[in-house]
């Protein structure tokens, strides 16, 4: 009996040990990114964990480098890039909401021919290699004058945000019992009032969570603005590459920019934790 208790105890210690080890692996790069972002350039190459922290990198990223000598690129475009990310990500989510909420409702509540095919076509965008769409789009965009415009990027971001919203919201609509709508229908309310006054409030938490998750995915996207955008709509993901591909590598600047560029997603993700699993699995896991 005693030896079994001992084995279990050893097992628990081993399990905790493994878990801690895994989380060190998962969290260390993030901690290290924060550390590097607080290092001055002198200490960047000479110290590891013990150094005098400074906010110079953040200041340089946000307000420009006061000590930028001639010949050194002062990267002041970060605030602009950040703003671009905000604009295209929220724009994409707004368009997806306007377009996707009714579609999700139709897919959840009505039976019509080709319904499942339609739903899976939307889903297939999520899994299709992006270049299949954006290589030809890069031609069409130049012809239509959409290259390097907010509208163009927001339009193509629908590939990211729309399938997510439609599929997650559809699963939320399906969770609501049709009895409620039937009762309202018997009372003579038209379908759009039932939708707006009864259904929407019921799915609101899920709707908000799905919208925020879609925002995160849009924010994190890289290949669309890389191919279809240039200086006008440059997002933080594309511009972050510039910090280490330039002749002199600004590792600490890049780290500071990364920290700021990652904060929105981390905060949003933490605020929707309860709904995250359903969102990440496109409604397949109710979590």
């Amino acid at each position, binding site marked *: 009996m005693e030896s079994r208790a001992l084995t279990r105890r050893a097992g628990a210690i081993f399990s905790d040990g493994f878990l801690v080890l895994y989380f060190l692996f998962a969290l260390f790069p993030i901690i290290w990114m924060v550390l590097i972002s607080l290092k001055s350039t002198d200490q960047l190459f000479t110290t590891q964990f013990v150094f005098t922290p400074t906010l110079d990198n953040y200041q340089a990223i946000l307000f420009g480098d006061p000590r930028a000598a001639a010949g050194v690129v002062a990267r002041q475009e970060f605030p602009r890039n950040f703003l671009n990310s905000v604009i295209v990500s929220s724009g994409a989510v707004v368009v997806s909401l306007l377009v996707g909420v009714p579609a999700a409702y139709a897919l959840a509540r009505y039976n019509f021919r080709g319904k499942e095919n*339609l739903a899976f076509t939307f889903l297939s965008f999520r899994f299709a290699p992006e270049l*299949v769409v954006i290589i030809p789009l890069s*031609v069409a965009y130049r012809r239509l004058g959409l290259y390097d415009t907010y509208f163009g990027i927001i339009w193509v971001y629908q590939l990211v945000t729309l399938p997510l919203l439609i599929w997650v919201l559809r699963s939320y609509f399906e969770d609501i019992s049709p009895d409620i709508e039937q009762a309202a229908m018997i009372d003579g309310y038209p379908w759009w009032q039932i939708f707006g006054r009864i259904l929407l409030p019921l799915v609101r938490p899920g709707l908000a969570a799905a919208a925020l998750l879609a925002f995160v995915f849009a*924010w994190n996207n890289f290949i669309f603005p890389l191919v279809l955008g240039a200086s006008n709509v440059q997002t933080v*993901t594309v511009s972050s590459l510039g910090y280490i591909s330039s002749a002199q590598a600004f590792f600490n600047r890049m780290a500071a920019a990364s920290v700021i*560029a990652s904060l929105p997603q981390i905060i949003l993700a933490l605020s929707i934790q309860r709904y995250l699993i359903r969102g990440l699995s496109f409604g397949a896991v109710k979590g």
Partner: protein
Amino acid sequence: MATEHASVTGLVTHEEQLQPPLRVRARPVLIALPALIVLIGILYPFFTAVYYSFTGYALNRPGSDSIFVGLRNYERMFTDPDFLNGTYITFAYALVSTGVELSLGLVVAMLLNRETRLAKILQTTLIFPMMIAPVIGTLVWKMMMQPSVGILNPMMATIGLPPLQWAAVPETALFSVALVDVWMFTPFAALILVAGLRSFPQEPFEAARVDGASFWFTFRNLTLPMLTPYLIIVIVFRFMDSLKMFDIIFAMTEGGPGNTLMTYQLTAYRTSIQFQKLAQGLPYALVLYVVIYISSQYLIKFWGKAQRRAAGL
């Protein structure tokens, strides 16, 4: 109105079911219309992609989009000496990272399922690697692997391991990018699987415990079959995503060193966008699309089956 809608079956009134007026039949289509318009806006470039792949279109040669070359672009792709390596890298990357994420995620999920305080705190932080932009996460790893400011080699030296050149040399390039993928997406696998584990009914597990079943017996005969639908969801998402992974490889090496990491996606980007030979790069993206489409159909069918089996039907 109220009396007219008195007899209701489902969401459609009885009268509507017998003789649905066009107005009612068209309603779902009308509601979904805006989404359909966006759909067309996305499908249209897809079909032009197929068309362009049969032309000699190059961005720097105006008018070349109407030169029909038949299957020459596909022929060129299949006979390219780098095609084999590209195929190998595309699939090796996807299989290795999906495999490791699935197994590591399963172990982490089972350890997190123990309702200890440590497990609860740690589960919250799981989302960090997953929520940071893949490009930015990769750049952080690139810095960690870097010889002058990097931290990985010094850390390995303290436990007596020789320094590595990570993504800078062909031998360890695939390992380096797969490592970043594993870091970034194991939390996804763990979160999905932990949700699965928590959804299980407790009775069969208690019965097994009362009968004195071993851990492995319970795992093989109860946990694994019930978890299969969740495992497949992880495989669907991770396998499809890593087949077309662009961000991590591009941020790490842009496909290098040399052609080491030129997956289909990277080759399509380099050929069509960087070298402006638009039509020549498209076959890579289209073949990848077909591969992903076929495997997704297969996996979704398998998922449905596993779900029914797990539900005991």
